[in-house]
């Protein structure tokens, strides 16, 4: 508290903040700070504003965009290098309009086009939290964003903003339940799901009319997340969607890896149950006109974990045996294991120790089932390939998950 007070005084930020620490409004102040902290989590500020191994919020993380690497800024309340001297209005302009306090324009790698809807109250809570609770890091970011012409002309962002930035603030719509409107606010504004899940046009703006329909992202594919009629997630139960967001996995549905794993780890696992329910309710409202490409399987997953005599297991084993019998040499002479190959052998040796011979995983989903996994069954193989190559490294609310990056060993 002492440090915060000292900081508030020296940086001369608004009187309101100083007043927070008078006994009368202390409880209110605490609630405000907690709300700001929660919003910072929900908006996942830390993920982009922290360099791997660096101080939290001190920036320097390189976001790889098709236009080049964009480095995040230091948003700690450092006077020299962060946002220490910023007024709340300047802060709001940066978050909601992509305008830095010194007048330069931000690139939409900072999802201000989503944050644009953030309410004044939330901006205030976020501002108080960021400027009073985060340790200032008096250190320059280091690498500087340097895109090629014409993208290096930040002033062009004015045009972009004019074309694509919707400056409307969030407000509940008539007929919406509180749950639905909260869900819409979280998905479209705070948690900025569309930043990855909505496809972008050639100007890197999200395509209107294609909200949350899925988009490619550095080798990964952020899929269509419509959970309403004909949506790919229509068959997921509410508790499965919530568990996926909170823990990063839901049995027989899928696991969060890559950027989604990061979203779970840094942000989604901290959300309250009502907020997870609100997101789920909003996704339920998303409908699609056409049938999803992938099959929705109704088969029940095997219940016995170590049932190595199942039909599936026997088939896998037989296939490996056939491949071996067709050319037994690699197995007879251990100098030749460069020749051990074949998908079945590879699966048995590299995957089955965890996911089991028949792909059923473990009953507690510590090792996920592959048999009905959305990742395995997707018509697009990007995420399966990326999972195998890059592995899974994710802290969910329930446990830390880890799958080897087979492309790197």
């Amino acid at each position, binding site marked *: 508290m002492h440090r915060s007070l000292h900081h508030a005084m020296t940086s001369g930020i608004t009187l309101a903040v100083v007043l927070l620490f008078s006994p009368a409004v202390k409880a209110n102040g605490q609630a405000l700070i907690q709300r700001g902290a929660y919003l910072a989590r929900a908006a996942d500020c830390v993920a982009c504003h922290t360099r791997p191994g660096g101080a939290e919020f001190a920036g320097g993380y390189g976001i790889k965009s098709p236009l080049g690497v964009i480095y995040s800024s230091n948003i700690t309340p450092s006077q020299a290098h962060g946002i220490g001297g910023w007024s709340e209005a300047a802060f709001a302009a940066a978050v909601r309009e992509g305008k830095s306090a010194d007048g330069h324009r931000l690139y939409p790698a900072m999802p201000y086009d989503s944050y644009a809807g953030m309410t004044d109250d939330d901006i205030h809570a976020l501002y108080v939290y960021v400027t009073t609770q985060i340790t200032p890091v008096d250190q320059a970011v280091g690498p500087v964003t340097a895109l090629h012409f014409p993208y290096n002309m930040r002033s062009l962002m004015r045009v972009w903003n004019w074309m694509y930035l919707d400056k409307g603030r969030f407000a509940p719509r008539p007929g919406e339940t509180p749950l639905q409107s909260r869900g819409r606010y979280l998905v479209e504004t705070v948690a900025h799901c569309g930043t990855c899940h909505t496809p972008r046009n050639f100007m890197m703006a999200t395509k209107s009319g294609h909200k949350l329909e899925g988009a490619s992202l550095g080798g990964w594919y952020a899929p269509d997340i419509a959970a309403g009629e004909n949506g790919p997630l229509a068959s997921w139960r509410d508790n499965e969607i919530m568990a996926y967001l909170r823990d990063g996995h839901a049995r027989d549905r899928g696991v969060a890896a890559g950027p989604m794993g990061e979203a779970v780890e840094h942000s989604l696992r901290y959300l309250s149950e009502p907020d997870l329910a609100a997101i789920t309710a909003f996704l339920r409202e998303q409908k699609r006109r056409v049938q999803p490409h992938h099959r929705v399987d109704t088969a029940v997953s095997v219940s016995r974990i170590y049932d190595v005599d199942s039909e599936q297991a026997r088939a896998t084993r037989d296939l490996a045996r056939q491949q071996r019998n067709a050319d037994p040499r690699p197995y007879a002479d251990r100098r030749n*294991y460069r020749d051990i190959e074949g998908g079945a052998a590879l699966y048995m040796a590299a995957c089955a120790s965890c996911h089991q011979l028949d792909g059923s995983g473990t009953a507690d989903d510590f090792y996920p089932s592959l048999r009905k996994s959305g990742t395995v069954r997707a018509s697009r193989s990007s995420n399966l390939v990326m999972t195998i190559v890059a592995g899974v490294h994710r802290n969910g609310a329930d446990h830390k998950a880890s799958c080897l990056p087979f492309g790197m060993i």
Partner: protein
Amino acid sequence: MTQTDYDADVIVVGSGVIGSLAAHHLAKNGKSVIILEAGTRVPRWKIVESFRECGNVSTDAGNRNQPYPNEPWAPSSFVPDYITNHGPIDYIPGMLRMVGGTTWHWGGACWRLLPNDFHLKSLYGVGRDWPISYDDLEPFYHQVEIEMGVSGDDTADYSGQNGGAFPPRQAPYPVRPQALGYFSQRFRDRVAVGGYSFTYQPNGRATDPYEERPACVGNNNCSPVCPIGAQYSGDRHATKAERAGAKLISDATVYRLEKTPDGKRIAAVHYYTPDKRSVRLTARKVLVAAHALETPRLMLLSDVGNSSGMVGRNLMDHNAFSLAMIADEPMWSGRGPVQQGDVLKWRDGSFRQKHGCIRHEVGNFVGNVQITERLLSQGVIGPELDEKIRHMAARWVFMDSNIEMLPEPTNRMSLSASKRDFYGLPLMDIYYDVNDYARAAGNVIREDYANFLKLLGGEIFDQNLSLWENRDHPMGTVIMGNDPRDSVVNHEGRSHDHDNLFIATTGIMPAASVVNPTLTGCALSLRSASIMLKEI
């Protein structure tokens, strides 16, 4: 004239855990590093597949080298003629020749030595003192534990005296201990009655996911191969060294260290490729980390670093006995890793004036294979066979003991007079015997085994109290010391004879203690690497 143009700042010979850790440290700090590895590179899944197909079904009784590569130019240690013996005790340790080295098939034990282990001569009047103390090595133990993700018990007294946490550490273990399996719990409780403590074994298995390794889930297959890579193995740092910029050349058998004309430095490293082409590389410094037996072999082949005549001598292991019993209650061994703890009653004390210290390692294997073989040999078949296998396997208790050995110059590896390798170079011959100091400890083990049998209501399945089983812990062969007349390397791991030659292997350890030497070898290697860094 001073040479200014080199192929690398440092050439590391050997890509096992000891060489790779040093290579990684040097490369990470901006040095150009070449790692030369005689063996080949194979991904884990192929080893797992090879293991499943090779009929080597017992983690304990089988040939642990069997699932691994045996290239003609880099055979593993059990290939006939690779090592011959002419002494009273046959000594051929399990050893692999491939990228990552022998930690592909270890039990993952990651012990620190005790402070007293460094002052054996001063304290107990036997063996040799180290030229450094525990405090000199502690920072490097700490560093290695973080690199490898070592799990340990921060409250344990690893000196076996049931006191407070010991030895001193600058920070807690980076990985929390794994919960004890039912077997370990039952064993602990049953032997406690007789005054024996069961201590959690520090190990390189990930209790929680660590870096790129998933958590151990108890495949109980740590050796011959952890199928999911939860257990640390040297290939991790071979790969990490490469990512940090080191160049790793596999299938490159180093056969000669070339001296400068004045003999004071190593001018170049020569290796053969499988097509018998010779390649010469130069570096500012050379780190030979090629195992406790292949390292002295290379030095003898090159006539390097042997002014003391000690290269290849003072071979030590932890040779001792073992006991398999059928306890009076189901113990359910075989869940979790293959070893979880030890009895350290004889870890340290004034008795070391008279006999070596002792460590009883409690195995957590399943005895199905041995049990089935025994029953079949007795003619048991049909439903009775099934029932007896179940009954005995559930009650199976196995332990193997380790004894401290002292350095004896007569215990030595020398170049074979008759056996040659793929390139026509002499292979290895070993003379090995266990001295009276270790034999005296054998009598203590006899008494302990009798006590364990009583405490567990055990029936002997197999008790070996006569054959000196080796523990694959070779040490002493390129011994460290202050006096260049009776040691090969100084306290830095630097050759007494060649200023730019460093040796990193458990072979430089001048006292064997009684714990698996890998972590100590690694700490010594990082210490040498940090010294090299300052000089380049």
